[in-house]
C-alpha cells in the first residue's frame, strides 16, 4: 500500500440543507441532515466506491468534495488546497484538476453542441492545448474512450446512451484531472453497455493512474471496479476498507444486510428469508444514537442511547458499530467463493 499523502481528505464534514415549513405554523426551522460528520481520505491512484441506499448522502458527499456544495461544518482539503474555504484561487485549482461524470449522460450534454464541440469546449476553457491542436486532441480523447472519431460531428440525440456516457467521460478526461468523481454513471445504462463502461474505467485506471471516486448503489459493480469501499448510511460512513475485506467479512450489520440483499445470478444462492425490514428513515428526522438502530437486528439498548459510534479501525478496515469483528455471519457469497 502506498504511503503517499492523500489526494483528497475530508475531516468531520457536516452538510445540512435548511428546509422551510416545519411545525404547526411552518415556523420551526428544519434541515435535511445530508452529511453528519464524514471523514475520508483518498490516496492518489486509488479507486474508492461510495455505496449506500438513496438518502445516504453519497451524492452530496461527491458534490461537496468538488466544492459544488457549501458545507455546514468540517474541512475538505484537495491536494493542499482548501475546498471548504471558498477562496477563488483554490477553487479554480479544483476546477482545473477535478472532473465529474454524471448519471444521465443525455442530460449532462448540451443538446446543441456536437460531441466534438462539447469536448473542444472543455479544452478551450481550460486552455489545455493550443487552438490549432484542438481537433486532434478531440479525436484522441474520443479514441481513448472507445468511440470512432467520426462520431464527433453528431449531437447527443443521435448517439445512444452508452455513446453519450463515453462522451461524458471524454469530457472529464479532457481536463486531465487528478481526480474524477463519477456519480451513478452506469445506473442508467443497459446491462451490456454497463460492462463496457466498467471495463473502460478499469483500462483508464491502469493507463492513467486515475484517482476515481465511484458513487453507486450497485455493490457488484463497486466490488469489480474499486480498491476500497466506503458504505454510507444517513450521512455517515458506517464501514470503510479494502473492497475484498469488506465484501467477504463485513463488520457492520448494515453492510452485511446490503450484501445479502443483492440478487445473485446463481439460483442456488437465495435471497434472505427475512430481508432487512423497513426503509431508511428521513434525513430530516434522524434517529437518536446510531441511526441504523431501528433496523438493526443486533441493536442493544445502548445503541439508541449513546452518541453514534465512531469508526473503529483494525488492519485498514474501519467500522462504526459496537460489534466486534467476527460477530456477524459471513455472507453466502463469500463462503461460496471460498468453496469454489
Amino acid at each position: 500500500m502506498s504511503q503517499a499523502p492523500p489526494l483528497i481528505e475530508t475531516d468531520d464534514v457536516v452538510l445540512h440543507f435548511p428546509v422551510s415549513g416545519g411545525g404547526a405554523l411552518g415556523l420551526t426551522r428544519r434541515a435535511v441532515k445530508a452529511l453528519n460528520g464524514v471523514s475520508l481520505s483518498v490516496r492518489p491512484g486509488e479507486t474508492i466506491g461510495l455505496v449506500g441506499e438513496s438518502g445516504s448522502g453519497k451524492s452530496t458527499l461527491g458534490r461537496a468534495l468538488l466544492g459544488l456544495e457549501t458545507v455546514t461544518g468540517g474541512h475538505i482539503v484537495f491536494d493542499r488546497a482548501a475546498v471548504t474555504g471558498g477562496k477563488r484561487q483554490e477553487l479554480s485549482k479544483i476546477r482545473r484538476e477535478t472532473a465529474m461524470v454524471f448519471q444521465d449522460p443525455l442530460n449532462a450534454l448540451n443538446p446543441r453542441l456536437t460531441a466534438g464541440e462539447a469536448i473542444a469546449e472543455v479544452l478551450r476553457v481550460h486552455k489545455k492545448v493550443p487552438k490549432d491542436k484542438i481537433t486532434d486532441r478531440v479525436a484522441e480523447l474520443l479514441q481513448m474512450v472507445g468511440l470512432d472519431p467520426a462520431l464527433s460531428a453528431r449531437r447527443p440525440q443521435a448517439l445512444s446512451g452508452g455513446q453519450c456516457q463515453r462522451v461524458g467521460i471524454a469530457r472529464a478526461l479532457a481536463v486531465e484531472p487528478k481526480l474524477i468523481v463519477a456519480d451513478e454513471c452506469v445506473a442508467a445504462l443497459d446491462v451490456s453497455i454497463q460492462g463496457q463502461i466498467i471495463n473502460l474505467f478499469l483500462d483508464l485506471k491502469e493507463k492513467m493512474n486515475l484517482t476515481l471516486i465511484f458513487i453507486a448503489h450497485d455493490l457488484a459493480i463497486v466490488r469489480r471496479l474499486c480498491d476500497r469501499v466506503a458504505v454510507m448510511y444517513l450521512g455517515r460512513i458506517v464501514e470503510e476498507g479494502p473492497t475484498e475485506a469488506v465484501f467477504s467479512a463485513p463488520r457492520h450489520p448494515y453492510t452485511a444486510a446490503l450484501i445479502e440483499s443483492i440478487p445473485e445470478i446463481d439460483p442456488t444462492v437465495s435471497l434472505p428469508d427475512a430481508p432487512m425490514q423497513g426503509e431508511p428513515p428521513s434525513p430530516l428526522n434522524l434517529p437518536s444514537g446510531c441511526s441504523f438502530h431501528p433496523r438493526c437486528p443486533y441493536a442493544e439498548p445502548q445503541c439508541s442511547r449513546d452518541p453514534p459510534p465512531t469508526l473503529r479501525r483494525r488492519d485498514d478496515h474501519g467500522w462504526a458499530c459496537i460489534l466486534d469483528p467476527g460477530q456477524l455471519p459471513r455472507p453466502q457469497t463469500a463462503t461460496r467463493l471460498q468453496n469454489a
Partner: protein
Amino acid sequence: MSTPLLKVDGLTVETKTETGTHRIVDGVSFELQKGEILGLVGESGSGKTMACRALLRLLPSSRLSIPKGSVRLDGKEVMDLPEDQFRAIRGKRIGMIFQNPASHLDPVMRIGDQIAESVRFHHGGSKRAAEERTIELLQQVGIPDPKERSRAFPHEFSGGMRQRAMIALALACDPDILIADEPTTALDVTVQAQILRLLKELRDARGLSIIFITHDLGVVAQLCDSICVLYGGRVCEHGPKERLLAAPRHPYTAGLMGCQPAIGATGERLRTIPGYPPTVDAMPTGCRFHPRCSNEVAECSRRQPPLEAYEPDHVAACYNPVGEAAALPAKESA
C-alpha cells in the same frame, strides 16, 4: 399438458414513423402456467414492455398497432374481443404494476379510496365492504397499521410502501395474472429484496401467475421459474430458469450472463457484448443480434433463425448456438 393459463402466439406490434413502419415486437410467443413466475428479460428496446402492454391493449400511442397475434386466456381467444368486453379482463383477470408507482397512483386521492374504487368497479358491493377489503389487501402486502395508512395520500408513503400499495391495487380484483414491469428497478436493494419476497409469497398463497419484466438477471434467478429472453423485439431463448442459466444456448443470453459484474474478482475485466442494442428504425436483417454476435455464421445475416427446441421446454433461435460445435462454417474462416 394442461391448457396454459395464458398463451401468447405471434404477438406483433408495429410503429409508424416518418421513416416507415417498424416492428418493435415481432412474433413474440410464450406460455404461462397457473402459479408460474415468468421472467421477461431484455435491454431497452427489446420489446419486453411493449409486448406486455400489447397483450393488455394498453399501447401508449395511437401510432402503435397490433397487426397480428393471438392471446388466449384459459384457451379462449381474447385478442378480437371488443373493447367493452376486454375491460372485464384488463384489471380483473390480468393486473399490472409499474416501475414508478408514484406516476400510476392518483396523487390527490387517499390510497385506501383508490383501492376501494377499483374493488367496487369490478365487484360492486357496498362501500363498507370495499373498505374492509381494502384494509385486508393492505395487510396482505405488508403495510403496517393498514387501517390508519389507508387514509394516507401517495406522497406520504415511501417508495417501497407505494410499490406495496400498487400491488394491493392490482390485487384488488383478485386477478389470475400479474404483469410486473420492472417493479423494483427504482427501489433500494434492501427494499427490492422485501418486494421480491412479497411477490413470491403471493404466488405461493394464492397461486398467482406473474410475468416479471426486468433487465436484471440476478432478480430473475432469484424469483422466476422460467425465463424468456428478448432481443430486438423477438424471443431469442426461452426455458426453465435452472437450465437456461446453467446452459444458455443463445449467444446473447450467454453474453448477458458474462456482463454480470457479480461473477469475478476485483479488477478483472468483464466479458462484454460489443456494440449497442439496435434501434427500431435500423434493425439488422436476419437474426437481429448478428452484428454483435461472436458466434456469427454466414446464414445469420440472411435469414431469421427459427426457435429450435433443445429440450422439450427449452428453445433458442440461433444457427450456431453456444455449447455446440459450429454446425455451419464460421463467416471469417472462409
